[in-house]
């Protein structure tokens, strides 16, 4: 019985944190946010060098054969540094192909195939979006696709919940509050589906879990910054962290975040080991981190006072990443509804 990251997992996280500290300081993130393509490419190539693309690909297909818990450890570090990365898309795709991906997985692990995700319509269809599939041809549009820019292929969901791998078609950028990542609108005009996967709750659950891990990392960064600021900023002749109101705001953030970390680990482990509650836990982890993240994003900003509102300390980049994560692959309300469904709690009528 050991509920903790393994030595390997801790080393993975430490080394990634160390890499990101050097390769993705706030100045670099600012450049990426203002669409400095060179800065984005440099970071992406550095991350590629760490071999993350094959992390969740089985060893037989040239990957590392690691699980979702390892992937969450990586995604948490990426969220902590609010670094852009294709890792989430790659990992979710590898998970989707876990039973039938021999043709694609080696290319994913080697980096020759670069995946994006167009799964939004699995949870919500707005503005006429929705993808249909007829005779191997995919048509329609999808919103808020992840890592589609620069991808060779997309993992795309159709209105019946089936997943398809298609060559990346025409994209247009969707500008969100979060400038650390680029999201896209995808238009399919009868593109060929290279692979069709059966509807599979686990893929969406994995995607949600990774977003939860991303929020975990970003929220931890905001909490850390707030505590550091509270311990240093003086007003009325004392550090503001000695005022009970500020102290309690920090305590409330920590009290919500710390159990969230265990939840992400547990959910990932449960999916990895095929525990029956795994999908429910992963789905609720997404909702739980969305709520905790929203609370921490706001509260950490408040602790920073006016400084938190400015661009000077860059805190807002984390605020906005958490804000987009809240909606990505389903709002907290949608996730909770799905968790009820997964447990058979909804009326069968």
């Amino acid at each position, binding site marked *: 019985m050991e509920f903790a990251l393994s030595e390997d997992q801790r080393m993975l996280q430490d080394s990634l944190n160390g890499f990101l500290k050097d390769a993705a300081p706030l100045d670099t993130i600012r450049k990426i946010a203002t669409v400095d393509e060179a800065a984005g490419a440099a970071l992406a190539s550095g991350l590629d060098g760490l071999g993350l693309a094959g992390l969740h690909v089985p060893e037989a297909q040239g990957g590392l054969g690691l699980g979702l818990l390892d992937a969450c450890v990586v995604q948490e570090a990426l969220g902590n540094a609010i670094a852009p990365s294709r890792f989430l898309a790659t990992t979710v795709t590898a998970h989707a192909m876990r039973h039938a991906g021999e043709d694609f997985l080696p290319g994913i692990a080697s980096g020759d195939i670069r995946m994006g995700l167009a799964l*939004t319509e699995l949870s*919500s*269809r*707005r*503005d006429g979006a929705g993808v249909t599939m007829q005779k191997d041809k995919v048509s329609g549009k999808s*919103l*808020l696709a992840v890592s589609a820019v620069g991808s060779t292929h997309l993992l795309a969901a159709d209105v019946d919940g089936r997943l398809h791998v298609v060559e990346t078609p025409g994209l*247009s*950028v*969707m*500008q*969100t*509050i*979060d400038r650390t990542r680029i999201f896209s*609108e995808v238009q399919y005009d009868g593109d060929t589906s290279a692979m069709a996967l059966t509807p599979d709750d686990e893929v969406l659950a994995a995607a949600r879990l990774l977003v939860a891990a991303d929020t975990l990392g970003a929220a931890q960064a905001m909490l850390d910054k707030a505590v550091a600021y509270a311990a240093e900023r*003086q*007003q*009325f*002749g*004392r550090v503001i962290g000695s*005022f009970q*109101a*500020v102290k309690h705001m920090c305590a409330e953030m920590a009290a919500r975040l710390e159990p969230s970390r265990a939840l992400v680990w547990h959910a990932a482990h449960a999916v990895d080991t095929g525990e029956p509650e795994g999908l429910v836990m992963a789905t609720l982890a997404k909702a739980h981190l969305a709520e905790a993240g929203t609370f921490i994003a*706001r509260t950490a*900003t*408040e602790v920073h*006072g*006016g400084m*938190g*509102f*400015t*661009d*000077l300390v860059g*805190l*807002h980049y984390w*605020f*906005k990443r958490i*804000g*987009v994560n*809240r*909606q*990505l692959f389903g*709002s907290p*309300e949608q996730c909770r509804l799905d968790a009820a469904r997964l447990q058979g709690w909804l009326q069968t009528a």
Partner: protein
Amino acid sequence: MDLSFSPEYEAFRKEVAGILAANAHLAPTPDDRGMKNPTRQAWQKLLIENGLAARTIPTEYGGYGAEPDILKSRIIAEEFARTGLPRAMSNQGISMLVPTLLELGTPEQKAAYIRPTLYGEMIWCQGYSEPGAGSDLAALRTAAVSDGDDYIINGSKIWTSTARQADMIFCLVRTDPDAKKHHGISYILFPMDTPGIEVRPLVDMTGAANFNEVFFTDVRVPKSGIVFAENKGWQVANATLTHERGMLGDPNATKARLVELVELMKRETVNGERLIDNPLLRDRLLKLQGEVYAMQANGLRITTHSLKKESAGLAGLVVKLMGCELNHEIARLAIDALGELGVMYEEGGHLRANGAWQARYMYDLGLIIGGGTAQIQKNIIAERGLGLPREPKLAKA
């Protein structure tokens, strides 16, 4: 309890409506940009001459010279809201400096500054907060050292809106570094084109530069700019701060936002269902509607207290805290209801209301923090409203 207006006031309303209707064609449009746009200045002049702006400022200083009458002010505001015509100019010069000068300015200061400020010919900015003096404003350190008839000013200010457009600044500076912190501050006016002043835009989380930083390096200004008296600036500023607090938390603006949100939720769909038909979103909407009703009623109660020249007590003290939070929550529901589309910003095909909900969500958070953080507001409510003791003094470290 009587929420109707007497015939005198109904007649006044008709008069206001008549003036607005007759002059509507002269109103500036969104294309008339800039704080000193001639069309906007002409509109302001027209409003003042008709008693719809600067209404209670004495005529000798360029105002309309009417007796203060809260109901008439309210009727004017309602008629502007009803017609959608642009209201009188509102800036920190008009709302904060002019009342201060009327109360404490020298005859020369009144003569020189009030009229052009009212007419939009002189723009002011406020130099209060500093990087090290936010909630604890009295800790400000920008130094004004006496040199003959002048001061030499060094230091910096932050959160200075309109600094880039301003002709003049009203500024708090430390004139006695040895006095206790509240007793060494002076309130001084000087031109923004004085040599040694540098203005840097301060970009905030909304992406816009709603504020600025202002840096002073050996800025020489005449002592005649002092308002009231040297080292009495804290009292002067407090008079002004009172004027500022009233500007936040207008319940009618909040109501207008709620109405906008209701329309949004009736119009938008997700998975083919109207947002307002989602029980979770709808329940949150109705909760907010209840709070909006409460803050509106609270506002009416405050107005009545003002009419009777009574303090509104707790009803007044809670407005900033509750009003800013409510605005923020309305924006938050809009964003949540829009889901994936709620995070769109600035440009693009799926953007709603030009990104206004996200901009408000963030800007409102700034308002919750600014002008007395939520924590300071709670201190004020507890101490002034409920009579609980102030923060006890600390032992010397």
